[in-house]
């Protein structure tokens, strides 16, 4: 399982938009369209800033009244799922301004 201090980012190759409260995400290579439920959409929004697993779980505890341990486990499992689909990454995306 991913450690709580691990930072997670959206994969920069991913196309996505939150439409009427629902995240619509396209996988980079095969163009598969995914939609995320309310909690998944909130996590997706948070990933724009590269939070840690613990930080995401903390937000979910506050906003969705989930117990802390359960939140950390669920977030880690969900992030694993996003990593498998290559729509999230553990590598900080290179900023174009870094060039």
């Amino acid at each position, binding site marked *: 399982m991913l450690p709580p201090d691990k930072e997670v980012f959206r994969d*920069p*190759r*991913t*196309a*996505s*938009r*939150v*439409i*009427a409260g*629902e995240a*619509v995400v*396209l996988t*980079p*290579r*095969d*163009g*598969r*369209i*995914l*939609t*995320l*439920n309310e909690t*998944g959409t909130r996590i997706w929004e948070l990933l724009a800033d590269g939070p840690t697993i613990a930080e995401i779980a903390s937000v979910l505890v506050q906003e969705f009244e989930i117990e802390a341990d359960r939140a950390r486990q669920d977030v880690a499992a969900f992030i694993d*799922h996003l990593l498998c689909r290559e729509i999230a990454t553990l590598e900080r995306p290179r900023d*174009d301004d870094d060039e």
Partner: protein
Amino acid sequence: MSDSHGDEAPTPLLARIRRKAAQQCVPLHAMIELTHRCNLSCRHCYVVPKSDGNELSLDDIRRILDQLADAGCLFLILSGGEPLLREDFLPIAAYARQKGFAFVLFTNGTRVTADLAAALFDLCVRRVEISLLGGKPETHDAITGVAGSFREAIKGAELLLARSIAVQLKTTWMRPNIEEAPLLESLAREMGAQFRSGHALVPRWDNRPVPADLQVTRSQLTAHVRRQLGGGPYPEPAAVPKERRKDIIPCGAGRTSCVVDAHGRLLPCVVLRTPVGDLRKGSFQDIWQSSPELKHLRSIRLADLPDCSGCNLFTRCSRCAGIARLETGSLLNPSRQACNLARLVANECMQWVAPRCPV
């Protein structure tokens, strides 16, 4: 998490997303015409090329992409003219990627290089659509007016396919090419490309009509439809209850889709070219929310179309509101092109008669 594979074909998941977007007038789909210039001179093309130096700058385009993203646009088409004539095409595409668009490139394929294909692969372009106007080089080149353009388009497609980029060859059926449909389809299949085609010939922006010798003949169209139907049986389209039909939104232009032309004018679609605002002067969101023209477009329901709303051919019809207006002057009238095609298909299927077909 639910998912759906493939392009913008109407999968159930995408249909649901589109319904949500339609309910809230989210511009899910947008096209940016990066230039109206082109290196080909296709006889049927509706674009009137201009080299007036008034094209959107890279900064303009970045700002417009920012605003489209904020408004909820996800599917973006980079089009033209020939968009690859812009020297800053790759920075534009890179910015579209950075802003999270699923972007598609419309091109004639002649300017595709190995380096461009590599860059597009890195940018995860969703699809590249290449116009191919004949199954034979001489047919394509006669329509484009440029010798060798067929060979260059095929070469461009091959360079993209070699990078595993999804390529869609597409054509508009005209008198010189409609009989080459089997050739075009097999060419695409053998290359590993997708293929799509359409019948709509759109008059040029300067109101010059489509040349008469490009219009398909009745016998050509009949033979083409018969071939497409493959001798049947042809599935009967799903019936739509009358009480639901009246509320159907007949066109998403200005509701879930829009076009930005090369000068920054916001248009409902590529055919409805009356600008509803100038994105160099105003913000997308202001125009999108307050334009009276867009509000009028969004108010139209199938029940408002006096002839079409009761037509038995409704479920077989691919009517375009923009073409209907060009043909008749009204957004609410039937489109002769669509009526002819729908009636032909229905007659060939021998399932329907067209007692109320108005044309």
